[in-house]
């Protein structure tokens, strides 16, 4: 009996000890967070605005979690873990976290609400996690492969509506997620959203640029008359919004270039002094009008600094031929040297002999230089180009025949970057000759030496001083 009582006493003591130790043991980090912070799901919109962002030092160490456990975890903490998993390039962790979040669309809505009210603005990690999560949700819900029963259209509209109240820079990040969301080759932000985007653009004129940017793929895939009408209205009312002008004009030029090209050129002329608007118009013409019409139009509009547009047209199917045809017409008629120079800048698909031929025959030194620059840009050059470079430079004193040293140095710089072996060695010698030639101007000598310096052994120019300036 005594033995039995002793055993019962021991069991009671052991249970009491276990209870005491268990009470003293700290909770796991996730549970501590849940106790310290109010669950965000329970907060109203006003509460969300007031909720201070959690400091970054509160971060719990990332740990792998099953989706069911993730669903119970505090949302801000989960969003930070999404960003941390991305930063660690941990695809397994990222997949687990996003799977858990996306399985409950209400959590994605909650993340959007936090982002919309600026509740995550001070918390970079949670903010990045929210943008990643929403981007994944838009794509996943809108994909035909997805087995989730979510109204993808309604969710995307909700994100579009919230966008106006999201603070930059996360606003632009979220807009990019919307623009880039794709199901295979199909962009999810399709024409079914056009009306909504234009409505929101009108409702939030201060955010017009952000909403205009969302139209990029809509304008590329315009097929119905109603959509075209919407873009026509946008073009006529967008005025000074370069993105809206670019996208709406692109849509209109794709549909009916002959009708809209004249208006585009008039608008370009009226936008003198407004670089961004002029670039937008020229970009629309280069990317959307039929190549023949685009080449003719850009030739008329050609202005210094339109390299991007001419390069874009040159990359389109048939674009290079159209540019070459207009160059030939202009050179035969003695037309604008600026237009010829830009036309030649778009001929990057032409062979070296063709471009070296232009460098040998065009009457303008700027066009001759451009032909050599175009040929040596982004691809290796052959001896024919170097022969022409040296012969044009040798006649530099005669602008009708040669090219100036400053221009020759630029061409030589391209050859250094893009060529190897004998051509690179030859151009090194060419630049070294200029750098050491006292008959050249100090600026040209310095430019040659500084172009060459990264390609020479360390210390080569240590003691070089040209015109009172150190080459280094």
């Amino acid at each position, binding site marked *: 009996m005594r033995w039995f009582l002793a055993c019962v006493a021991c069991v009671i003591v052991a249970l009491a000890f276990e209870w005491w130790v268990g009470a003293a043991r700290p909770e796991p980090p996730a549970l501590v967070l849940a106790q310290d912070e109010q669950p965000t799901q329970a907060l109203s919109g006003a509460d969300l605005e007031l909720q201070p962002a959690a400091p970054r030092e509160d971060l719990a160490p990332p740990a792998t979690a099953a989706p069911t456990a993730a669903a119970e975890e505090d949302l801000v903490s989960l969003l930070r873990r999404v960003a941390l998993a991305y930063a660690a390039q941990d695809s397994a962790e990222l997949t687990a976290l996003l799977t858990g979040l996306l399985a409950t669309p209400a959590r994605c809505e909650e993340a959007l609400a936090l982002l919309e009210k600026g509740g995550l603005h001070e918390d970079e990690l949670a903010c990045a996690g929210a943008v990643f999560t929403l981007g994944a949700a838009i794509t996943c819900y809108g994909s035909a492969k997805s*087995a989730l029963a979510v109204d993808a259209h309604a969710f995307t509209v909700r994100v579009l509506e919230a966008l106006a109240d999201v603070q930059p820079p996360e606003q632009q990040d979220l807009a990019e997620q919307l623009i880039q969301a794709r199901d295979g080759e199909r962009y999810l932000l399709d024409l079914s959203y056009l009306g909504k985007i234009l409505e929101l653009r009108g409702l939030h004129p201060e955010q017009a640029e952000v909403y205009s940017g969302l139209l990029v793929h809509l304008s590329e895939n315009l097929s119905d008359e109603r959509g075209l009408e919407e873009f026509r209205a946008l073009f006529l009312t967008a005025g000074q919004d370069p993105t809206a002008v670019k996208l709406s004009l692109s849509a209109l030029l794709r549909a009916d270039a002959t009708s809209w090209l004249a208006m585009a050129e008039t608008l370009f002329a009226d936008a003198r002094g407004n670089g961004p608007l002029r670039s937008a118009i020229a970009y629309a013409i280069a990317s959307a009008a039929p190549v023949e019409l685009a080449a003719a139009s850009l030739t008329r509009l050609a202005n210094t600094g339109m390299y991007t547009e001419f390069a*874009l047209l040159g990359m389109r199917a048939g674009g290079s031929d159209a540019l070459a045809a207009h160059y030939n017409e202009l050179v035969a008629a003695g037309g604008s040297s600026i237009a010829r120079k830009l036309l030649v800048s778009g001929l990057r698909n032409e062979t070296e002999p063709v471009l070296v031929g232009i460098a040998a025959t065009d009457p303008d030194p700027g066009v001759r230089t451009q032909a050599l620059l175009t040929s040596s840009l982004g691809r290796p050059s052959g001896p024919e180009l170097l022969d022409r470079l040296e012969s044009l430079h040798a006649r530099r004193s005669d602008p009708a025949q040669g090219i100036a040293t400053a221009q020759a140095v630029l061409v030589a710089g391209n050859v250094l*970057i893009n060529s190897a072996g004998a051509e690179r060695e030859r151009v090194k010698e060419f630049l070294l000759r200029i750098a050491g030639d006292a008959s050249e101007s100090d600026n040209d000598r310095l430019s040659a030496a500084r172009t060459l310096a990264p390609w020479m052994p360390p210390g080569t120019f240590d003691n070089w001083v040209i015109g009172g300036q150190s080459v280094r």
Partner: protein
Amino acid sequence: MHKLSVTILLACALVPSLRAQDGPSCPDVRATNVAARVDRQGSFSRCGLGVEIFGVPLTIGGSKCFRNEFVYPAHQECQGALNVGTACQPAPDMAVQLYKCECLTVGLISTGISIPKCNCSSAGSAGTIEDAQTLECHVSP
């Protein structure tokens, strides 16, 4: 005496510039600043992390990576901005640079982590743009 001669010399030096401001040949314009800009050409890829969620392949995060970037330097242009007593004159051309970009996986030192990054390198000078400068008008006496 010394002060007088200095005053006369300074007065003589000032006469041409005073005349220049009223001179009929001075266009009374100055060069206008044009900010540098980067034009990104064509479509882009995103250097992000690929994952698959509910059977849907996704790219998470990552910066936009355009194949071509044209960098136009800050320069000045003659746009007819009024400025009494000055002229807008051409200055030496400036180079427009082309950068070619692609997604590369870059290792972070001492972490064992590799992240995809948009890496751009110079392809050279794509062309030149004209620069301009403001000069005071000088009318010969």
